[in-house]
């Protein structure tokens, strides 16, 4: 079965530090990749997505993610985090032609200290 692994469950950073959250998936075919974010007290929302083309995708609020097919990875990055980036981040995958059926990772809870 398809699975998504997020290796860091909790990350604590100081403001202005650089961020990289890992995401690996197990499915070998063509996939679409997503990062969702859940700010405290808010609903989950899409941060960025990759379908095809340039493997480096840019999302909202200065986030980016790089798809490395050979490593089955889609890591999320931000050069300089802010206190307002404190949230839980979820990586998700769906297989080509699977419609909107997403498989989510376990989530990474990020705390940014001011």
């Amino acid at each position: 079965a398809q699975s998504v692994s997020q290796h860091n469950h909790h990350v604590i950073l100081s403001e202005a530090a650089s961020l990289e959250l890992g995401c690996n998936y197990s499915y070998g075919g063509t996939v679409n990749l997503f990062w969702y974010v859940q700010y405290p007290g808010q609903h989950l929302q899409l941060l960025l997505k990759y379908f095809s083309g340039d493997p480096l995708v840019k999302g909202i609020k200065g986030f980016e993610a790089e798809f490395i097919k050979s490593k089955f990875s889609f890591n999320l990055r931000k050069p300089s985090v802010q206190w307002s980036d404190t949230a839980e981040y979820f990586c998700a995958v769906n297989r080509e032609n699977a419609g909107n059926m997403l498989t989510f990772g376990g989530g990474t809870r990020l705390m940014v200290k001011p």
Partner: protein
Amino acid sequence: DVKVTQSSRYLVKRTGEKVFLECVQDMDHENMFWYRQDPGLGLRLIYFSYDVKMKEKGDIPEGYSVSREKKERFSLILESASTNQTSMYLCASSSGKSTGELFFGEGSRLTVL
């Protein structure tokens, strides 16, 4: 602005009670989903529906059922609640096009005593 509304933010029920969680979306979306969210496990799909009166099992359907009588409404039913169903339940919807973007409600936190 897109909106997915879950009827109850917090519920406390007793073991064996029947529980209804309601979800309404105003975006005319074909697809609707119910996930449960647990710490360290992320979101796990319980059921989804791609059309009125249609439903498909997700990864963890045991102990749950769903109903979709109208396009905008998708209900999750716990026929006999158990303590291991204490969780945050998230409803989501998406258009019929395969964009992968789900729109989520704010969640319903259910505690079963």
